[in-house]
């Protein structure tokens, strides 16, 4: 059993089900990447794992504990962190305050972590006093990831963290993710920059219409011609 697993999840936003018997999981120190066409239900699956959506069948387990019934805040307290795909910053708060909010539940000194984030994304250090709402799209994305890193989580969930960031920052980001994973943290990530992502992934999921279509190691999926053609852009 994996450290984090959303098992056989079925559910949606109140209308028709979006997810059908969908399973995603990540083990400690492991990077799991979800790919799939737009509207496949990737973000929905992430939200389901984070408890922001009702699933009527299936369950979510963290470290052997069933957390299906917990609220999102409670999951944060259990060491999960999530970067949503859209509206993922506090627009009228400064960059630094955004980061502080990421560490809201932490009681220790957070300055060190803040400095680490600034090191990772130097532009944020320059703009620490600026409101996040005034940042460029890519800068915002960096704030969002930075905010999640502030939690010092056990599980880090990222919904398209590289959307809109420049190649150099994307590389930095993936580098950092690998580092983070190496410290034993589970990473669950949705990506459309799929090839780069699968390249560093231990495990990959291809989701189509709310169902698991392929599940394999990152490399295996990359080498699967069907997957390449239909989902990775050839």
């Amino acid at each position, binding site marked *: 059993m994996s450290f984090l697993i959303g098992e056989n999840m079925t559910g949606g*936003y109140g209308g028709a089900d979006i997810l059908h018997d969908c399973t995603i999981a990540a083990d400690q120190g492991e990077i799991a990447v979800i790919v*799939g*066409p*737009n*509207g*496949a239900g*990737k*973000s*929905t699956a992430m939200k389901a794992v984070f408890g922001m959506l009702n699933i009527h069948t299936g369950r979510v387990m963290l470290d052997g504990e069933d957390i299906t019934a917990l609220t999102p805040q409670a999951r944060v307290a259990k060491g999960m962190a999530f970067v949503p*795909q*859209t509206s993922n910053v506090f627009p009228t708060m400064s960059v630094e305050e955004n980061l502080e909010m990421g560490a809201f539940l932490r009681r220790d000194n957070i300055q060190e972590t803040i400095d680490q984030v600034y090191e990772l994304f130097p*532009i944020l250090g320059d*703009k620490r006093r600026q409101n996040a709402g*005034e*940042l*460029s*799209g*890519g*800068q915002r*994305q*960096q704030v969002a990831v930075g905010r999640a890193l502030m939690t010092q989580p056990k599980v880090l969930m990222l919904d*398209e963290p590289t*959307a*809109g*960031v*420049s*190649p*150099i*920052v*994307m*590389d*930095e980001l*993936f*580098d950092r993710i*690998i*580092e983070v994973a*190496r410290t034993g943290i589970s990473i669950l990530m949705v990506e*459309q*920059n*799929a*090839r780069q992502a699968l*390249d*560093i992934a231990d495990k990959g999921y291809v989701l189509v219409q709310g169902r698991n279509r392929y599940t394999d190691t990152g490399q295996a999926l990359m080498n699967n011609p069907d997957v390449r*053609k*239909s*989902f*990775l*852009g*050839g």
Partner: protein
Amino acid sequence: MIKVDNLSKRFGGFYAVNGATLNIATGSITGLIGPNGAGKTTLFNVIAGVHAPTGGTVMLDGEDITGLSPHTLFHKGLLRTFQIAHEFSTMTVRENLMMVPGDQAGERLWDAWFKPNLVRAEELELRKKADEVIEFLEISHVADELAGNLSGGQKKLLELGRTMMVDAKIVFLDEVGAGVNRTLLNTIGDAILRLNQERGYTFCMIEHDMNFIGRLCDPVICMAEGAVLAEGTIDEIKANEHVIEAYLGTGLKNKEAKA
């Protein structure tokens, strides 16, 4: 077609665009790249009339369009998409598309009240067109869904779809590719090429996916710190040291260690 001359835009004490000068040739697909915060989106916003420039001019086909409002520019054939999708979230996908064309008779109150037949005929036409676009973008199954309920990528597609509803002269695309599935992005790339070749649209697109840029764009302009850093073909740009240092980078460092 578009001539941007020494354009600048200041926010508070900070110059987001700082003396940018560039040309977009008629019939080209010009790529615009640059690090996050280089001022690309701001440049678009100034050209498209969302922000008034602090200095400099913008010309469209020899006409000074500096500071004109977005809706005026729309009628001059200048369209743009938004980096952060700006769909009409309480309207259906189809309505989002049908509202785009300008000069609809039904948008004039008098005709809406007293010329129902005219309006009805026009609506049929619009609907057909909208359905074609929907089909093309592979979002038929959500055609009657509220746009606010679309997935992130679908919203991006809708954003692009709106520019396809009218005959534009020049279209500014702000990261249409971000968050779009790569397979679909290829299809979109084909569409852009087709619009460019068959209908003569000029494109200027911001993108961070170098493959996508490489496939479509010539020339490519790289911005940094509010000004143009380099311009050239994709290969020239890829080889430019400044661009590599500021933007492209040299790949993953940790990958090997990990394996």
